[in-house]
């Protein structure tokens, strides 16, 4: 049981949390043919884009309603309408993902009404789904924005017509912001190997798939398709990956009566076991030999290397979902959690198997991490790692000083091994330094 402490300072120093808009846009990027649109001043869009471009190292489709001083006084309805019409004409999106910002939420723009009235004035837009999500910067964090967007998506797009029957092999997978494109790719492969047809929302594995085409497009070229989203109502099961996806899974349960199960982590022997057993139960197919073999490998790797992990102290500053899964994994290897910092209150935090967790910024982290053997946080932790002379393992968003993080895979037996090797190597390196 962890005690949750909130630091009581009047000034946040080196914030750990990102705006909700960053999370919502990230979720939207996992849908095919989407153009995310932020209702706010152009800086909101530019800054959100900057974070994602830095992290993914590729162009990110994103547009703005470009609120001006006058529009801020008079209200933004016209700007939203104009933006949507411009986008439809120029980029021909299949979906628009509309996010609010701190500016318009403070102003009090009623965006639900805006969208309704714009639809009323422009029946020609009937074909175009506009997914609205409230993402004020002054509330919540990246993970909340991501979860909010996924909830809006599953609330608005999937429809079940009476003609459609449930598809016995089709399952919906809701993947939280804790999973990298590489993770999503691995999850898809595992699920497919059971003869199941997964619809992943959002499918970030497409973000990696920047294959070369003859013409480039302003909207996303990969991700969950609109047809897939519409057919979600016929799935037989929902796998919610990450606690923050529980809300979206509940929406699908309410709307379509689809049962769900939440998996808070997919890293670590027992966590993966549980996941594969669930897939075997749903599909009626036994666990494929490929994964049985991987499991034997992982067992071997764990036995052979657990010496390096025992009693090591790790300090983490991560968003709640990622914090939970990383802590669970490290604990399963015998690692001590020296300090844990996160961004926001979250149901699972109290259940963390550690003494306390701090909701705070990276300055808090720097103070708490003194004396640990390893730091785990995003690339903003580099300076802290240098000052404390403790190695840093990068997780979260943004990571901008590593080349492999998009493809990095920490889920499944294979991913668990990779994660174990990465961290174990850092411990080994530190030990080698002491000896020389």
């Amino acid at each position: 049981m962890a005690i949750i402490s909130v630091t009581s300072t009047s000034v946040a120093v080196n914030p750990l949390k990102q705006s909700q808009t960053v999370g919502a846009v990230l979720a939207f990027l996992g849908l095919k043919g989407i153009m995310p649109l932020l209702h706010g001043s152009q800086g909101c869009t530019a800054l959100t884009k900057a974070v994602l471009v830095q992290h993914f190292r590729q162009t990110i489709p994103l547009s703005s309603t470009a609120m001006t001083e006058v529009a801020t006084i008079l209200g933004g309805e016209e700007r939203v309408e104009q933006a949507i019409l411009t986008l439809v004409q120029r980029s021909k999106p299949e979906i628009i993902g509309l996010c609010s910002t701190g500016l318009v939420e403070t102003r009090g723009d009623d965006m639900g009404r805006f969208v309704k009235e714009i639809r009323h004035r422009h029946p020609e837009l009937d074909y175009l789904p506009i997914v609205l999500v409230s993402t004020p910067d002054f509330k919540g964090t990246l993970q909340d924005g991501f979860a909010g967007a996924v909830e809006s998506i599953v609330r608005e797009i999937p429809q079940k017509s009476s003609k459609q029957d449930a598809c016995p092999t089709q399952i919906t997978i809701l993947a939280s912001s804790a999973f990298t494109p590489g993770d999503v790719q691995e999850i898809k492969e595992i699920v497919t190997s059971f003869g199941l047809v997964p619809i992943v929302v959002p499918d970030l594995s497409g973000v990696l798939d920047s294959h070369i085409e003859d013409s480039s497009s302003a909207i996303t070229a990969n991700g969950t398709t609109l047809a897939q989203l519409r057919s979600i109502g016929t799935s037989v099961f929902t796998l919610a990956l990450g606690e923050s996806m529980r809300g979206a899974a509940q929406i699908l349960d309410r709307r379509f009566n689809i049962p769900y199960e939440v998996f808070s982590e997919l890293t670590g022997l027992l966590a993966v076991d549980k996941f594969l057993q669930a897939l075997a139960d749903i599909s009626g197919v036994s666990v494929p030999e490929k994964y049985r073999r991987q499991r034997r490998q992982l067992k071997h790797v764990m036995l052979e290397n657990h010496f390096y992990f025992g009693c090591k102290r790790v300090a983490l500053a991560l968003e709640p979902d990622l914090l939970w899964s990383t802590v669970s994994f490290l604990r399963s290897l015998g690692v001590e959690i020296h300090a844990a910092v996160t961004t926001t209150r979250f149901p699972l935090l109290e259940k963390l198997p550690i003494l306390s967790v701090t909701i705070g910024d990276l300055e808090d982290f720097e103070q708490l991490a003194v004396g640990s053997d390893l730091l785990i946080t995003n690339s903003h932790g580099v300076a802290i790692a240098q000052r404390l002379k403790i190695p840093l393992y990068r997780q979260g968003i943004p990571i901008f000083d590593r080349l492999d993080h998009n493809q990095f895979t920490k889920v499944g037996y294979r991913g668990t091994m990779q994660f174990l090797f990465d961290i174990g190597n850092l411990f080994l390196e530190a030990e080698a330094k002491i000896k020389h």
Partner: protein
Amino acid sequence: MNPTPGKTNDSLSDSNSEDACQQQIQKKKKSSTQLPQPGTTQGSCAFDSAMMTLVPITDAAHVVHGPSGCAASIWGSYSSLSSGSMLYKIRFSSDIDENDIIFGGAKKLYKGILELQRRYKPAAVFVYSTCITALIGDDIEGVCKDATEKTGIPTIPVHCPGFIGNQNLGNRVAGEAMLSHVIGTAEPDTTTPYDINLIGEYNIAGAIWNVLPLLEKLGIRVLAKITGDAVYKEVCYAHRAKLNVILSSKALINMAKRMEKQYGIPYIEESMYGIEQINQCLRNIAVKLGNSSLQERTEKLIAEETAAIDEKLALYITQLQGKRVLLSIGSFKSWLIIFAAKKLGMEVIAISTNNNTEEDRIRVKTLLGQDGIILEQNSPQEILQIINANQADMLIADKHHQDTSLTARIPFLDVNQERNHAYAGYMGILEVARELYAAFYTPVWEQVSQPAPWETGNSPEENI
């Protein structure tokens, strides 16, 4: 609502009637590019660029009065370097939440400033308003005044909510903040007849360090860098300089004009990007400081530096001469690529700028000659067509055209690399040459543009 107090607005439109008239004309001409349009992404906001201008004051604490998302998002996007204090790298935010929006965030800001002053001992504090705190009407002017009185450390309000406009406006607001609260508030220990200020060069990737040694060799003292690798104190006594040299940022020209009026400091607009440009810059500084021996020394230095750089460039010239490049550039600095390409004997066949103003067009035509092509749409299709028609050897563009060059099977250079590499001064040209060379001779392009053996349409049997 308290976004821009009256005096800032007044000084933004210069009172000089001729200038005002000029501005009017410019406004008319550029209106389409200056007003942000819904449904597009056109650069960032005033908040972002105000911070971009002031954050390089390295020993100050920069506090974002708004949600911590605003502070988190800009973190890491400025690669301005420091030779001393690292305080400017710390991101402070009042972390406004829902409660503060209802009850006002001014008190929290005040307490936060006192706290950070106690813990970090900054030379000064800059407080940046954001959309939200401007909208709820927090009086940051009053908070800064109170905090200054309480702590004795200068605390400067910067009125830069994102919604007031684009990046240019943010730079200007930052300039205004310096003029009304910083410049002229301290005196240098000594002055010399060769004191100058460098304005509008933020030491991105350490660019200014390519230039300072040159000025030092000439005995010219840089009194204040506004604001690359600056300390707060030097900006305070910038009013004692004999000359203001504006490098690259047009938005700070109002600042130079005000300093001319107020302190009688003349200004010149120069560039340090390109060999001709830096030569010209050094010459003009020497002329303005009005000393014939300085001018002689300058000519000597130019001759030496040019000879040295020519020698270093010789290898690259043999490798790159005659290559034909197509440019699509977004920022002012990327003009440097044209100068560098010409210096290396490369041929620039076509160019596109993000917003082809009339001024840009004329400039391009003078640089490329009448045969030069200006891209109209900057679309992949247009670029491909011109590459094919002109047998271009390389594409230099923003990252999103990378796929276009793969389709055309020619090497590609991402111009935005400037964020990570110092292109200024003589050494900067060498950096550009190195990058062009590396992009040209990488074996990667050839490999990745080969189809897989099974994609060529011939089955293995047929090949035998």
